[in-house]
């Protein structure tokens, strides 16, 4: 009778993916796992275990070892020991290992998918069709980069031992995003999977053994927060790559501040999903499904803020609701579901709490009429309308299947709403008008912008955040630099004490009359301004003679300068060619007053005439170099998936604070400020504290070189004080600091709050006269962040 009754109602039935192979694998390990260190399975010294269970049915899956500080130490040492051999092995050999990893993942694809779904609760369709294939693709792609490292990135070398901490939402894929580029660039790794999802990482460890990966190259240690903390704090690591919450990212930023450990952070998001009135609304509805109900909305780049043009809002809401009625929630291994289970009770409670808050704050909650199963941690797809930016649910990351919707009137308003967030991970926008799409995409503060699609990923495109969504990129060529360092940077050394020479050069003949007193001012918003404090600092020549005073800049001056810099948006919007023209003009005007600047250097530093002239000449040359780059340092069109144009565009950070080196006060100023300007940033510069006159002398030249007001601002004063104000300013997007070890730490520590990009020298000076120190592509990369814009096409 069964067939007949189904024939009459055409219901969906049970369609479970078998879990028998996964259970066999678990049983083979007696459902108990140890740590993978130095190529061996090792019992933790503490022999403590935690439990991993299936969120679809709350059943126990396995016991997993908790690594303590001693185990972490063992793992880091194993990675350190393995490093020299792994480096020596060479690009081709590493490429072969990565290729083997890709192949092994494919061979075990279904086991990976089933395990992933059992432990994470994500639908088998997603793990089978999306997560695992993307993980394999990541290894393939990076096998290629491993092969090409020494030709494509010949100026670079590996960073060393990398600590990697990954989240539970895409366990194997995040492992791939971390391990593949690290190994490809010649590093060794210690990876800690999230405590909810360790199993596929442990299966991956087995595959590393199978392919004969040298011991210690990959170490997998399991555990919760304390294990991660021990790893972050370990002195033996050179870099931390973290994906997870902004809160933890901030802790890591602070913990590593000033240590010189590289970090890359991929953090939270509240990504806008912008629908214009001419969009194909049925396609938009499916986009919404992919945006917020993919992986139960537990996706850092989930399109969780629906911004819809007011004229089509009601129509779209209606369509979304009827689509929601047809969504199915259930066991992750059921092949007929759209949403699986929420990872754990703690996450479920967090979702429930935020939804409750959303209702209390007046949002209109809508959920489909059907009920979720009750045997696991399920939450129904949820839509909030009548939400405003001031609502908590419009600002906080819910990390669940909850969409909040609000309307906009014009595309300008859409952009404002989209950017009205601390985050900046991703955005999607929906319109059939290519003009509109390409106007809006660059204006969204996000590392990825999807046009008429969402949650599309590929190893060839970089992924990563703006603002508090973190920094660094994963995927694409842009992602490799996070696992590399410049060979030339190795030569940066701790400074010898700077001893100012006595004035030996012949000064130019003096007039018999007393000199006319000159008041050196600061330069803010295109105006010469006096310090807000009303105080001045005396500046002496190399021989200790009083020359003049400079203004003692304060918080207020920094504030004013930052505001002026923000107002100078036109500089960023200019074409590279237009910026180049102004920079060349600056060089031209500086050339006319070459002697004057040389004399100033002689006066301030006591250097020889030839040294002074060299510094001025090189300054002019460096301006030329970066003016030349202004319209040449451009992006890529990545080879991602067919019928998608994926444009990787380097974008200016925005408003940058640049704290210049004390040494070589003219060249140091020019070589750090000009590349930032060339890329379209507006700059608040703090010149050399000892010799600020080299910078203040420049503002007359700047004034005559057609710079729009506010593009360059110069604040003189006490360098370290001003630096801290800049680094703590939440409307500053990036800070470069060339100074002391302590100052570097303060910058990194202070930057943690708004996650501004920082580039500091940890007290190791550059030789600005040397080509590969004072003038490098690195300056351009540090002055920009890559945005990937995805444009699928087809008529």
């Amino acid at each position, binding site marked *: *009778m*069964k*067939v*007949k009754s*189904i*024939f009459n*109602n*055409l*219901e*969906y*039935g*049970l*369609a479970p993916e078998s879990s028998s192979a996964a259970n066999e694998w678990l049983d083979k390990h007696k459902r108990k796992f140890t740590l993978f260190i130095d190529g061996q399975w090792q019992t933790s010294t503490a022999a403590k275990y935690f439990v991993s269970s299936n969120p679809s049915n709350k059943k126990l899956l396995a016991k997993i070892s908790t690594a303590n500080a001693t185990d972490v130490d063992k793992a880091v040492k194993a990675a350190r020991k393995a490093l020299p051999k792994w480096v020596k092995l060479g690009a081709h050999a590493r490429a072969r290992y990565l290729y083997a990893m890709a192949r092994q993942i494919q061979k075990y694809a279904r086991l990976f998918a089933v395990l992933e779904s059992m432990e994470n609760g994500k639908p088998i*369709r997603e793990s089978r*069709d999306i997560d695992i294939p993307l993980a394999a693709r990541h290894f393939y792609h990076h096998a290629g980069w491993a092969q090409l490292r020494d030709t494509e990135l010949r100026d670079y070398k590996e960073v060393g031992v990398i600590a990697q901490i990954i989240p539970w939402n895409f366990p194997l894929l995040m492992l791939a995003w971390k391990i593949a580029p690290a190994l490809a660039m010649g590093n060794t790794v210690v990876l800690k999977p999230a405590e909810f999802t360790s199993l596929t990482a442990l299966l991956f460890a087995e595959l590393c053994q199978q392919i004969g990966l040298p011991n210690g190259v990959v170490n997998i240690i399991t555990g919760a927060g304390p294990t991660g903390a021990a790893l972050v704090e370990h002195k033996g690591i050179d870099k931390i790559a973290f994906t997870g919450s902004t809160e933890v990212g901030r802790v890591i930023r602070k913990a590593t501040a000033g240590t010189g450990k590289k970090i890359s952070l991929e953090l939270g998001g509240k990504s806008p999903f912008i629908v214009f009135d*001419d*969009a*194909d609304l*049925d*396609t*938009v509805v*499916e*986009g919404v499904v*992919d945006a917020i109900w993919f992986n139960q909305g537990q996706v850092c780049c989930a399109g969780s803020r629906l911004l819809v043009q007011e004229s089509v809002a009601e129509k779209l809401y209606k369509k979304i609701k009827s689509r929601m009625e*047809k969504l199915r929630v259930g066991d992750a291994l059921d*092949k*007929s*579901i*759209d949403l699986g289970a929420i990872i754990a009770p703690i996450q479920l409670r967090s979702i429930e709490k935020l939804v409750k808050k959303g209702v209390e704050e007046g949002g209109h909650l809508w959920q489909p009429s059907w009920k979720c199963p009750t045997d696991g941690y399920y939450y129904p797809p949820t839509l909030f309308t009548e939400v405003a930016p001031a609502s908590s649910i419009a600002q906080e990351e819910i990390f669940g299947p909850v969409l909040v919707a609000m309307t906009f009137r014009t595309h300008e308003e859409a952009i404002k709403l989209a950017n009205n967030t601390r985050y900046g991970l991703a955005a999607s926008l929906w319109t*059939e008008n290519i003009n509109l799409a390409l106007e809006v995409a660059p204006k969204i503060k996000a590392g990825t912008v999807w046009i*008429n*699609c969402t949650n599309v990923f590929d190893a060839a495109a970089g992924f990563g955040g703006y603002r508090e969504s973190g920094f660094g990129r994963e995927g694409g060529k842009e992602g490799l630099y996070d696992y590399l360092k410049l060979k030339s940077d190795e030569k940066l050394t701790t400074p010898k004490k700077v001893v100012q020479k006595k004035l030996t050069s012949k000064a130019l003949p003096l007039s018999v009359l007393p000199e006319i007193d000159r008041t050196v001012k600061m330069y803010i918003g295109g105006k010469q301004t006096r310090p807000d404090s009303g105080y001045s600092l005396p500046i002496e020549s190399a021989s200790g003679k009083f020359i003049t005073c400079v203004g003692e800049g304060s918080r207020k001056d920094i504030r004013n300068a930052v505001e002026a810099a923000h107002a100078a948006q036109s500089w960023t919007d200019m074409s590279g060619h237009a910026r180049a023209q102004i920079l060349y003009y600056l060089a031209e005007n500086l050339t006319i007053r070459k002697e004057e600047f040389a004399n100033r250097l002689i006066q301030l530093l006591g250097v020889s005439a030839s040294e002074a002239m060299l510094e001025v000449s090189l300054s002019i040359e460096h301006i030329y170099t970066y003016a030349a780059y202004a319209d040449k340092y451009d992006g890529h069109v990545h080879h991602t998936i067919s*019928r*998608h144009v994926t444009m990787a565009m380097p974008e200016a950070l925005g408003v940058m604070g640049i704290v210049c080196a004390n040494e070589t006060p003219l060249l140091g100023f020019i070589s750090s400020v000009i590349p930032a300007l060339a890329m379209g940033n507006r700059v608040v510069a703090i010149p050399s504290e000892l010799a600020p006159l080299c910078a203040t002398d420049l503002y007359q030249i700047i004034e005559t070189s057609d710079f729009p007001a506010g593009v360059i601002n110069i604040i003189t004063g006490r360098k370290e004080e001003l630096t801290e104000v800049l680094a703590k300013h939440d409307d500053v997007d990036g800070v470069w600091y060339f100074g002391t070890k302590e100052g570097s730490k303060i910058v990194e520590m202070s930057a943690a709050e708004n996650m501004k990009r920082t580039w500091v020298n940890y007290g190791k000076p550059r030789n600005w006269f040397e080509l590969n120190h004072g003038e490098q592509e690195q300056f351009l990369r540090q002055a920009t962040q890559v945005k990937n814009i995805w444009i*699928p*096409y*087809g*008529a």
Partner: protein
Amino acid sequence: MELIRESIYMTATKHSETTQRNQGMPLDLDLIKNIHINRSGVERRANTIAARRSVKKDWQAAWLLKAVTCIDLTTLGGDDTPGNVLRLCIKAKQPVREDLLAAMKMDDAHIQVAAVCVYHNLIPTALAALKGSNIPIAAVSTGFPAGQISLEQKLFEIKKSVEAGAKEIDIVISRAHVLCGNWNALYEEVKLFRKTCGDAHLKTILETGDLSTLTNIVKASHVCMMAGADFIKTSTGKASVNATLPVSLVMVRAIRDYYERTGIKVGFKPAGGIQKAKQALDWLILLKEELGDEWLCPELFRFGASSLLADIERQLEHFVTGRYSASYRHPMA
């Protein structure tokens, strides 16, 4: 047996009573103008829709039997003769082996195909062969497949086929009207076809493979529905590209829009290239997900197919016996 037949017939009648026939509406050009279809988005949905649902075991068997009842069993060859049409018609009445139906306890469910689809010349043969059954004959018309004959000839052809006993007329639209954006002409043409059909149901073949863009396909779908089409149908089966899931998806959504605006349910018929049981399931899932269960019946959904039935039979036997089947074990059409 007769009693059961009666009751099935009654349910069918009841269904058609609730399914009000599309009378069309005035041409709304604003609506046509504002249609935006995003191909990549449509393809993404079409590619994943079947992967989001899986129908196995008893469900698969039941769904495949439903698919059988939605087939317009078709032969449209230059070499058609009374002989092969007769064979087709007998297969139409008994599409699945009696023993297989019995094993599924479906022997009393009166499983037969939805219609037999032939060229005009073969209507009398089919009529005779189908006598005693309630299986309607569908005739292709209006200069099928290219439609490059005069309007008078087209109307005459419809009239003759209806007179000959065809209950359903599968017309081809003038693709030139679509490609030239001549929506008025298309509307008037289809309206005339509909009028000429009288009580016979009108299926409008868009020949989507000729229409170039999905936007054109959706516009043409809407014009045909506004002109009174009972079904919109993808293809003749004679083009290089026939029924595809993306094309079906946008047509089905057009049907949904039309229903939401008018309360009238228009039917959908993908045709050409649907040869495998798995494909049939994909289409049923598409209909269920995008339109709803009400469309999963022969009154509102048809497969235009010739070889699909043979594959479904093999799958059904596999379900019953657990052994992979061979096509020679099933009577050919």
